[in-house]
């Protein structure tokens, strides 16, 4: 396992260097630089533009700029933003990342959970009307033109029915006198999510499987969720920040629903295919032969193994959570890292763009490693052989 991890880490670092290099040169390949934006103001002279180029280091040869950039990446200093000179890039990323992570993590988990549940059921009831309907719905939303869907959702649920807030991630009237910034509340929500996820992971990973009886397992599960939710509610209630968290949550409803609607189909079909393969396995047949209830065979035997590719896919998706989504952030006025990337590219803000890319890249690479480890841990048939994960014969 240690050797496997070591090899994976080396691969990750090499991947990251290649990725950051490619990113850098793609950005540099754009015609002009940030000073070109000042050509639209006739009162900003060529001298002033040259001074700005010097100040931003744009007057240096490309290889020096590249070496400086790589040095910054590996020393954890992402430099200062060009478009918000001289604000540090880390400062901007730290401001935008929590919003992005809260929204996209929630949406990813929700859509995967829906996909998992539906995939499990339609595979079991393959060929039924429900299977066809769910598959058709999943594929329809999966292929929908997302910006338009977002606008329709907004128009229908926020503007016409007025069930949810129209846009943005907070209501100004509520936050005007807030003693905390929304970012701090986002941070607390992230911490809350992490704790809750950790609790569930421990519960499902080590606690519940060791309980012998079905009723015991169900009770433990209820206790786990109930206790977690109660503790969360109690903490927010006593902190006096519940209204702010609720405000953010109410603004999250529409983007999360839209994102989930679009992406649940992917995980549902993945789960369905995986289940269809699994239910033909001998051990599933053996479980049936032992006279176990259909639901037990489905959920405890078939679904658990079928879940592996879904877990891998979820882990990788969570890696991408930090990159946000330009369309989602634009449509729902939820400025996060996706929009930051777009703006940075538009404004030739190389440090900010590459900083955001680096941040995303690191997360994705880590997610890949985690996915590999999880896969190796979850599937007892897998063993590390010569640094490769292969099926044992």
């Amino acid at each position, binding site marked *: 396992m240690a050797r496997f991890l070591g090899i994976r880490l080396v691969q990750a670092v090499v991947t990251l260097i290649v990725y950051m290099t490619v990113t850098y040169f793609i950005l540099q390949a754009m015609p002009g630089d940030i000073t*070109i934006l*000042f*050509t*639209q103001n006739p009162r*900003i002279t060529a001298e002033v533009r040259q001074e700005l180029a010097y100040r931003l280091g744009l007057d240096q040869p490309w290889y020096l700029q590249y070496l400086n950039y790589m040095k910054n990446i590996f020393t954890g200093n992402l430099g200062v933003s060009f478009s918000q000179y001289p604000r540090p890039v880390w400062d901007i990323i730290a401001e935008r990342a929590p919003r992005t992570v809260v929204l996209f993590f929630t949406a990813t988990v929700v859509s995967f959970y829906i996909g998992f549940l539906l995939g499990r059921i339609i595979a079991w009831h393959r060929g039924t009307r429900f299977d066809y309907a769910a598959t058709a719905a999943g594929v329809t939303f999966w292929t929908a033109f997302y910006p338009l869907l977002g606008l329709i959702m*907004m128009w229908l649920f926020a503007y016409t029915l007025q069930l949810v807030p*129209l*846009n943005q991630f907070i209501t100004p009237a509520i936050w005007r006198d807030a003693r905390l910034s929304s970012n701090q509340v986002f941070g607390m929500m992230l911490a809350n999510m992490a704790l809750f996820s950790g609790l569930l992971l421990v519960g499902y990973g080590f606690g519940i499987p060791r309980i012998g009886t079905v009723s015991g397992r169900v009770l433990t599960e209820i206790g786990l969720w109930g206790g977690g939710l109660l503790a969360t509610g109690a903490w927010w209630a006593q902190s006096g920040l519940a209204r702010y968290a*609720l405000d953010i949550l*109410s603004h999250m409803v529409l983007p999360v629903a839209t994102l989930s609607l679009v992406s649940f189909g992917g995980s549902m079909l993945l789960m369905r295919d995986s289940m269809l393969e699994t239910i033909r396995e001998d051990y599933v047949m053996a479980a049936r032969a032992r006279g176990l209830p259909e639901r037990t065979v489905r959920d405890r035997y078939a679904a658990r193994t079928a879940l592996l590719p879904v877990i891998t896919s979820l882990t990788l998706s969570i890696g991408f959570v930090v990159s946000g989504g330009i369309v989602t952030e634009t449509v729902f006025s939820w400025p996060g890292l996706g929009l930051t990337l777009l703006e940075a590219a538009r404004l030739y803000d190389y440090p900010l763009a590459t900083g955001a890319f680096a941040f995303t890249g690191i997360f994705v690479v880590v997610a890949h490693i985690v996915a590999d480890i999880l896969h190796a841990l979850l599937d007892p048939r897998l063993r590390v052989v010569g640094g490769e994960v292969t099926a044992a014969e």
Partner: protein
Amino acid sequence: MRLRVGAVVVAALLALALPAAAATYETAIFEEPTTLNVFAGIGPQATVWNSYVTYGIYYGTLYGNVAPTFTWSPSLAADVPTPFKEVTVGGQKMYTADVSIRGGLRWADGSLLTADDVVFTYDTLLRFDANKLGGNWPAYANPDVLHKVEKLGDYRVRFYVKKIPGLSDWQYGILQAPIVQKKVWEPIAQKALASEDPVKSLLAAEVTPDAIGAFKFNKWERGAFFENVANPYTSFRGETTESFPNGAVRITSAKTGFKWATKDPAPTGQPEVTVIEGPYVDNVVYRIYQNQNAAILALLKGEVSYIFNSLGLQRGFEQQLRANPNVEVIRNNTNGFRYISFNMRREPFNIKEFRQALATLIDREFVTRDILQGVAFPLATVVPPGNAFWFNPEVKVWGQGMTRGQRIQAAVDLLKQAGFSWRKEPVIRNAEKNDYDPGEGLILPNGQPLQPFEMLAPAPGYDPLRATFALWIERWAQEVGIPLRARLTDFNTIATRVFDEQNFDMWMLGWSLSIYPDHIYYFFHSSQSGLGGFNAGGYNNPEFDKIAEALKDATTLDEAKKLVFKGQEYLADEVPYIVLFDTPVMEAYRRDHVQYPYTKVLGGLQYVYGLQATVKLVK
């Protein structure tokens, strides 16, 4: 049903959280301000959003341009500056002018604005070097012109300049610098000067901004909204500004006893517009939306009363907005134009008749009226009609009122006059009835065939209007054998190739202009034709240079106006630019929420900061 219950619960929770309602002017913006630091905001972070929300609202200037006529007038100053006097400083010949400052003006912390603040501002700009601060600062403290500012008394300062500046550098430059509060900025400036990189340190300073205007900073919830609150100490409250039909302006303040009026022209008759300064609202909230659809929905829903956008709203929203009885849609002229130009260092673009022929072939009215369906309006002068004081209505417009056949005939005549010929000359049988055969293969006066060349123009994704124009220009040029190919590409490619590399044949872009038309100098004077200069086409005409130089040095409005008119006539004949069109700025506001003192203004309400200090709430 369950969804409804959930929504009711959420709504109830939100309602519990809401504080008592204030008189709020709710607005929408599409980009977040980036800084509260005025030096960064006007410098390297110069964006229109920063000006709408921060420094355009907080700071005052000694002199300003009073909307809606944009007449130059005192603002923090008590009167016009004294005429320049020649003096000797350290053996150097210099010129001085004195400016009196209004008494009784207070900063947001209650302290008085004095000469110390004014001196400190200019001294800081000179010490840090406006060119290094970047952005718009060099226009406010050009170190080639400004030497220093000296305190003569608590409310009087003396400017020392190295040469007598023209209107561009003086009235519309140095005298319009935002004045900052010494008390706030002095410790920051001192700390910055002691640092390794003083400019970077000054620009990086985090500060709660000082303010002397109608509003002061209150809260910035990054990514979501920004809020300014009424400045309790604003001394402009109740100040009346009257604008007269003859261009005169009269300013009176019962509160401070301040009175001022233009002398030439003097106010006569009834004022056309009377504006009484507020603010009439407790606060202004700027909600940050990332797209126009969201902001339009918010306006229709009543969440915001006005949408800031320097480009105006997209035409596609007009019908939707007009359908709502509570929404008022307004249109205003803009101070800008879209144009094509040439690399006049190359043949045939250096031949005046070639440029005139191309100008003659372009039917602006046809494209704007029939193809673009009135989204844009035709424009033919380098000073738009919207900038009425400076616009010369007598300027020649090539091809005006001609049929297609007549245009081709006129273009052929011009080209022949310059010695061009054709492999197959266009045949015009009846110009009036457009009965003609197109030509092919234009031959240069030196007998060589004109090789195909490209006109860089914005792609439809960036500007569909210009892309459309480019394709029609290509078609019309080819009808007379001019092998012009429109190459539709992105703005950055065009700007880089034109301004930084000067590697092009023709290009199409646009300009937004300032009220004082000194762009005539920057765009066409030969000194500006080097790499990075604004005269990228390399127009070089010693006679015109004299006009442009005289304009740059002009010290009176009358003198400047004559030169601007002359310059326009000259450029219309020489055609270094073919001005094509512009678009009106379309805006919308909630008439059931707010009331503005006027809505007819060059550049639209956004150009006057959404009239935050004079808007009144209806409910």
